């Protein structure tokens, strides 16, 4: 374990956390320890990145810094010294007075954090005015100045809009303005760009960094993405299961991690990849999508003239940002949304547009795995029911045969056999996703549509799932249609890729060819927006963008 840099108690320290300990405590007694003996010192103008997977305790630390805990959690040990006051020692009222003017918080989902019934300006100014730090007029002019600094469009008038009238990336920046209005000493960023598309993430990261630098505010930056934190943090603390694993200078953590766990995190993030060889071209495609267009009732077209082909053993990735129509494409292929034009053929045979017109065997041959394993599995069903149902349904097997098959599938998924009687709600996220895969495989399909199957999972767990999918493909020859926004995943597992922008295919072909120059401009934009593990990356991207700013802007605005 690396040593915390030895620091004297100097005036520059704005936050001093010593031996913080947070536990869950309910009527039923003591629960797990969420944060165990974590210490850090944050100096004026410094940014510390807190990194770890879900359950690492990073958000809990962020909240506890403000003297706040989630329901049933309690800070039971250590000191949280802010300026001269120990936040644990003061009353609830005094703590409340600190939040906003002194310590401010920026949450992951701005959309869920803003009240849709009030204008942005009202909400941005509310805390500062309520706490009596500023007069309404002062707060408003400070807000407008911040909107300008954060590169928001029409900074003078954007405040009169409502949250739904601005985009996700803009809202996230408005939230940063809200946190900054009262000029707090510490900002806590809790995964502020996780819910954003890669191209939007770049803008937000740049804006946040500018804000922090210009105001000299200290910040805790919580994220699970090492590459993101590399752009913004001076020091990085790696957390796991509530304990500190490693704490050090950003460059040292990224380039020369001391601990094994950190090394694994770093390695997975920059994992080199070999382009998967392509299936033999001579083979007829299993799935052929021909000039398909579709839209939701009374809405403009969501996908427009999309074509692609998937062969046996292929992994075809469909990439694009939110709103590009990639998930809609999956709904059209499965028949949940009937196509309006074009044709979808399976093994040369045209599939009826509507789900209910398709035969049981047509349904069996294409299965689907979802993004959120929590809602993709019925929480009340056992694994036997969940995985066994397709076996019983499609193949009319006896109870004994179903059980045998489920056990076999569990073994293939590296899940213990005794899980068979467990309810799906008792499993972890990664285990649930394995059950989803098992359920899909139980139908013995030729094609599996994977809709963002790793994006709700932790990095290392997601890696395991990808490896499992690859292994199954090698064994069974099943083809994948992989819908994702994560280009890293694409490079690693797909041999073909289809890039979608606003419902249209802008580039497609072998991954090697699409992801190599000469790029389609949008592919290049996507590729260049994926954060890299070098602190210089953001500066370089911004410099390059500034040079070609007009072209980039025109591309994103393209109809």
């Amino acid at each position, binding site marked *: 374990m690396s040593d915390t840099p030895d620091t004297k108690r100097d005036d520059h320290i704005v936050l001093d956390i010593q031996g913080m300990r947070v536990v869950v405590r309910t009527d039923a007694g003591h629960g797990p320890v969420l944060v165990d003996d974590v210490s850090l010192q944050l100096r004026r103008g410094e940014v510390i990145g807190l990194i770890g997977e879900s359950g690492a305790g990073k958000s809990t630390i962020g909240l506890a810094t403000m003297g706040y805990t989630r329901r049933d959690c309690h800070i039971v040990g250590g000191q949280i010294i802010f300026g001269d006051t120990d936040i644990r020692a003061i009353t609830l009222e005094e703590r409340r007075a600190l939040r906003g003017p002194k310590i401010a918080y920026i949450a992951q989902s701005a959309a869920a954090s803003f009240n849709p019934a009030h204008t942005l300006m009202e909400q941005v100014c509310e805390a500062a005015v309520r706490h009596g730090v500023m007069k309404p007029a002062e707060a408003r002019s400070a807000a407008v100045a911040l909107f300008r600094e954060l590169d928001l469009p029409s900074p003078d008038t954007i405040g009169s809009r409502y949250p739904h009238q601005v985009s996700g990336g803009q809202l996230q920046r408005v939230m940063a303005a809200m946190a900054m209005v009262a000029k707090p000493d510490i900002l806590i960023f809790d995964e502020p760009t996780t819910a954003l598309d890669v191209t939007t993430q770049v803008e937000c990261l740049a804006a946040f960094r500018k804000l922090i630098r210009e105001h000299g505010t200290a910040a805790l930056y919580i994220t699970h993405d090492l590459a993101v934190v590399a752009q913004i943090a001076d020091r990085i603390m790696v957390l796991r299961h509530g304990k500190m694993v490693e704490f050090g200078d950003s460059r040292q953590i990224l380039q020369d991690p001391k601990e094994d766990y950190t090394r694994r995190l770093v390695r997975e993030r920059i994992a080199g990849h070999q382009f998967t060889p392509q299936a033999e071209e001579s083979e007829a495609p299993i799935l052929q999508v021909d000039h398909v267009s579709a839209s939701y009732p009374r809405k403009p077209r969501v996908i427009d003239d999309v074509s692609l082909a998937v062969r046996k053993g292929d992994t075809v990735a469909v990439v694009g940002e939110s709103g590009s129509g990639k998930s809609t494409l999956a709904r059209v292929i*499965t028949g*949940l949304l009937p196509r309006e034009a074009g044709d979808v053929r399976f093994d040369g045979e045209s599939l009826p547009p509507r789900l209910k017109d398709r035969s049981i065997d047509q349904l069996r041959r294409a299965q689907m795995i979802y993004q959120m394993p929590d809602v993709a*599995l*019925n929480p009340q069903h056992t694994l036997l029911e969940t995985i066994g149902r397709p076996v019983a349904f499609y193949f009319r097997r006896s109870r004994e045969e179903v059980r045998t098959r489920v056990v076999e599938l569990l073994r293939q998924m590296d899940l213990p056999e005794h899980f068979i009687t467990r309810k799906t*709600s*008792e*499993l972890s996220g990664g285990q649930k996703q394995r059950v989803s895969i098992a359920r899909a495989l139980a139908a013995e399909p030729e094609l599996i549509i994977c809709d963002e199957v790793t994006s709700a999972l932790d990095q290392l767990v997601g890696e395991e799932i990808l490896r499992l999918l690859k292994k199954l493909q090698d064994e069974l020859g099943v083809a994948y249609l992989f819908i994702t926004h994560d280009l890293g995943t694409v490079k690693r597992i797909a041999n073909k890729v289809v890039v979608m922008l606003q419902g249209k295919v802008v580039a497609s072909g072998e991954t090697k060819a699409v992801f190599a120059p000469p790029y389609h401009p949008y592919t290049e934009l996507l590729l260049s927006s994926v954060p890299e593990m070098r602190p210089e990356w953001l500066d370089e991207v911004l410099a390059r963008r500034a040079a070609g700013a007009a072209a980039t802007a025109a591309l994103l605005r393209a109809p």
Partner: protein
Amino acid sequence: MRILGHKLTVTAQIGIAIVVINLFVALFAPLIAPFDQATPVGDAWADPSAQHWLGLDNLGRDLLSRLIYGARMSIGLSLIITALSFLIGVITGFSAAVIGGWVDQLLSRIVDLLLSMPTLIFAFVILSVLGSALPVLIVTIAILDSTKVFRLARSVAVTIVSLEFVEAARLRGEGWWWVVTREVLPNAIPPLTAEFGLRFCFTFLFIAALSFLGLGVQPPDADWGSMVKDYRDMINFGSAAPLYPAGAIAILTIGVNFVVDWMLAIHSRGQGEGA
């Protein structure tokens, strides 16, 4: 004290005690009641005595025995009606949510129509026309009540249907019956159980109200609502006779509500899903 791994609050304990005692009395009424409910055993309005703990009623029947038989009638009737209304309401509500489209529209509009009429007046008309035979009473109230169950069941199911495991079942090719019974129902049990308790109370009070108006349970059968009606004038003569059935109604209602509150609290706290 714990039930199903959940701590019992004091009010929940009181509620459960009240409900259990009432159910016991209702089930074993003929064994517990000292006299027959319909046979006069003495003078009208005889005072309480060692033999007749609560005295005799307007026809000289034993009041305590009528109260005990009344429990059987009131509680039994409410249970049958509530169960029937849930059967109708849950099946139609779930089907509306799962099938959607015109089926949902049709069922929802029928329910709107029924809900737009004041229940008591509606029941009044039906019972006046068809007479107050028990089967008519049961079916009428059950259908009226099922509209409210439909509303709840539909909204609960709409939320569940939007989840991806239901989509997965549809993609597999499952029919609506499977989706309703295997995918939706198991996830809708907690809110429906709580609602069952509440609806039981409403039904119970509704029957009491109908009986009080003379359209509910018909003599000589005893039920608490009609007993209040029959004895109400005696309050002017200093007799406590109407207070016993009225009190019984109040206590059972409170007891069931305590239990329901406790169940709702458990439900809102979540079942502690594994992460």
